[in-house]
Each structure stands twice: as C-alpha cells, then as structure tokens.
C-alpha cells in the first residue's frame, strides 16, 4: 500500500491523462444536485458534493442496457438469432465515489457473481472499472454508513482512496488496479506512509464523530424470518407508501431488472431495464394471480429483502450501505432507519397488542 500526494495542478492534468485510457465517470452538478456522469472533453469531476442524487450504480449497470441484438428479417441467414453486440470495452474509472457507494458494488456482486451463474454484462463492466473513492469529511445527517458495514473513509470496494489534503489530495493506493490508474494519471509523488496514515486516521475519526444517525442490526439474523414476515407493524409502515419506485431506483444496492424486447422494423434488441419490487407488475402472473398483489406485501418485500433475506442468504450483513438516499428522497418519508429499528427490536413473544409506533 502506497500513498501519493496530488496537488491541484497534478489533479487536473491527471484527470485529463486518464481520459486517454479510461472512460472517466465523476460527480457533476446538475441543477441543485450532483450526479455521476461520464466526463466529456475538458469536464472535471466536481468534488465539492455531499452525495449524488442517484447512486453511481449506473456507471456499471445502466438503467437501460442492450443485452443482445437480432434481426427478424427472414431473408437474412441469421434471422431470429440473438447476438451480443460490440461494446465500448475501454476500462472505466469512477472518480470521487463515496466509500458507501463503492461498498455497495461488493453487496451487489453477490447477486451477479454466483457459483452457478455469472452475469456477464455486470461482471465485465465491474471488472473493467477502477474505483477512486473520496473520503467523506461531512456526512449528511441522514447518513448511517457507520452502522451499515461501511464508513466515511471505508476502503472496501475501492482501488484508491482520496482525502482532502492541503490544496489537493492525498491518495491511498489500495490495489494493483489503483496503482495502474495513479501511474497513468501521473500521480506518483510519494508521501510518507506513517504521516499519511495519521492524516487518514484523524480524518476518519473526526468524520465518524459527526454521525448523528445509526441503525442497529444485531438481532436481525436471529429473529426467525417468518416471525418478522408475520409481524404486525407492516400495515402501519406501508400505509403511507405510494409504491413509486423512487427508493429502489436511487438505491445503490437495488439490482432488480426486467428484460424487454424491442424492434424497429426488423432490427431488434433484447434489453434490460431497472425494475422495482414496488411495482405490482413485478410479480404478476400470466393468470392474473399476484403473489405480492397488495402494497403491504410489496413494502414488506423491500425491507425484508434488504434486512432479512439478504442477511440470511449470505450471512454477511445487510443489503444497505447507509447512504441515506431513500430516506432523503422518499416522497412520503418512509424511513428505513425506523423500519430497521422495528425489525431489529421485534419480539414475537411480546406481541399482545397492536404495535403502532409512536414517533
């Protein structure tokens, strides 16, 4: 593990240099909020941001993505046969990603990279990407990454971690991929490791001290799944939900998708689009039967998936990194922190009366 110092000049030069070998993604301001976008020509990442409005998952996993192309023209030899299209396979660099968002890719990887099947679209994009993180000096009041397996200076899922230092950045190079990227960028001015560790340690401690919000997850694994499923609080939690997909679309760890065919003339594509468990259509059978036909069951599915099913399936924490986006953007203020608390504290034995929460 090495440390390098990047001053403002080197920073700008480095980002430009990277664009020659990478597709560079970074936060840019759009209106009031920041979003991760592919940086064009002389565009620089705008690093003065709290967190982006949408998560950066689209850099790896676009909202709408062509899987295959085909022709339905029967005069062609290969009619009706699906083919993988040529793609831009230039490596990607995601610059300025927050540690919580970077960690989310590791959670999502569990879904797309399994012993039995590998999702080639996600995995190829993921493998081709170098993640350059940016430590979080000022967490939002609704962030709770420190109690969701991550932290403002957490290194999991990152190849490089940047922190503000003097007029530029200090970079901690964490992986070979990170080393290749910093070299390509010309960020090679070594910095004393002992001193750097101290800077990183102090910054992390200061930032962690600022967290106002947290969740407890210690009991989730032990409460039987069916007890939580049958808990009386779901109707109350779900009441205000309007079943829009906002939470799922903003969430860095929501990965569900739909597969659709579209043709223009004889030219067809099979593509996949983000989908949402909040939509009734998500589970609707051809017969009209719907296993999650009501709102309560869909809301329950979202929280059970993140806070129980995932916990049970992988035995490695919750499917949430504490970025707080769903809390901030839910139009009706359903708060995963509150739901998590209710689930974590749930005692099926003590259920003798209705559990309407007091707020």
């Amino acid at each position, binding site marked *: 593990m090495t440390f390098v110092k990047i001053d403002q000049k080197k920073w700008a030069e480095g980002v430009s240099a990277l664009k020659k070998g990478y597709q560079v993604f970074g936060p840019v301001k759009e209106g009031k909020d920041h979003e991760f976008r592919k940086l064009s020509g002389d565009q620089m990442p705008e690093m003065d941001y709290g967190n982006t409005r949408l998560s950066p998952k689209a850099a790896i996993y676009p909202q709408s*993505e062509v899987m295959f192309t085909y022709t339905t023209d029967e005069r062609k030899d290969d009619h009706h046969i699906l083919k993988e299209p*040529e793609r831009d396979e230039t490596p990607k660099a995601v610059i300025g990603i927050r540690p919580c968002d970077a960690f989310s890719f590791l959670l999502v990887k569990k879904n797309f990279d399994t012993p039995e099947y590998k999702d080639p679209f996600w995995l190829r994009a993921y493998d081709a990407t170098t993640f350059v993180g940016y430590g979080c000096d000022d967490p939002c009041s609704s962030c709770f990454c420190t109690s969701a397996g991550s932290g403002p200076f957490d290194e999991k899922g990152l190849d490089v971690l940047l922190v503000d230092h003097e007029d530029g950045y200090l970079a901690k190079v964490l992986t070979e991929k990170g080393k290749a990227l910093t070299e390509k960028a010309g960020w090679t001015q070594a910095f004393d490791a002992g001193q750097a560790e101290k800077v990183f340690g102090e910054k992390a401690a200061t930032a962690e001290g600022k967290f106002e919000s947290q969740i407890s997850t210690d009991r989730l694994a032990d409460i039987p799944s069916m007890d939580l499923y049958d808990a009386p609080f779901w109707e109350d939690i779900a009441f205000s939900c309007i079943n829009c997909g906002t939470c799922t679309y903003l969430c860095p760890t929501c990965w569900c998708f739909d597969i659709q065919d579209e043709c223009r003339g004889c030219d067809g594509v099979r593509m996949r689009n983000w989908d949402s468990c909040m939509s009734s259509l998500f589970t609707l059978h051809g017969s009209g039967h719907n296993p999650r036909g009501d709102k309560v069951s869909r809301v329950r599915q979202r929280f059970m998936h993140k806070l129980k099913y995932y916990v049970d399936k992988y035995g490695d924490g919750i499917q949430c990194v504490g970025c707080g986006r769903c809390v901030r953007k839910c139009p009706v203020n359903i708060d995963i922190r509150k739901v998590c608390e209710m689930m974590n504290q749930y005692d099926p034995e003590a259920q003798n009366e209705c559990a309407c929460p007091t707020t």
Partner: protein
Amino acid sequence: MGIEPGRLHFSWISSAESTKFVKVATEVTQAVKELGPNRHFVKEKVKVA
C-alpha cells in the same frame, strides 16, 4: 408539446356521412404527405452502451 403543426386533425363524422369521411381522410393524408416524414418523436433504435 412540439408535435409538428398540421399533423393532428380533428373531425366529427357521423356513420351516415360516408362521403365526408372519404373527403376528410383524403385531405388529411394529402396534408400529411406534403409535410413529409415526421421529424419529431421518432423513436430511434436502442443504442448499445
């Protein structure tokens, strides 16, 4: 909304007014043909990322 002018027509034709129907249909197709191919709201093929 940006639909090109002249592409949207309304008419009220009773089921008994066959000649009016023919007349309107002819006029509308003629008018639209003169405008040439539609330029707005043409859906392109999905692009490969």
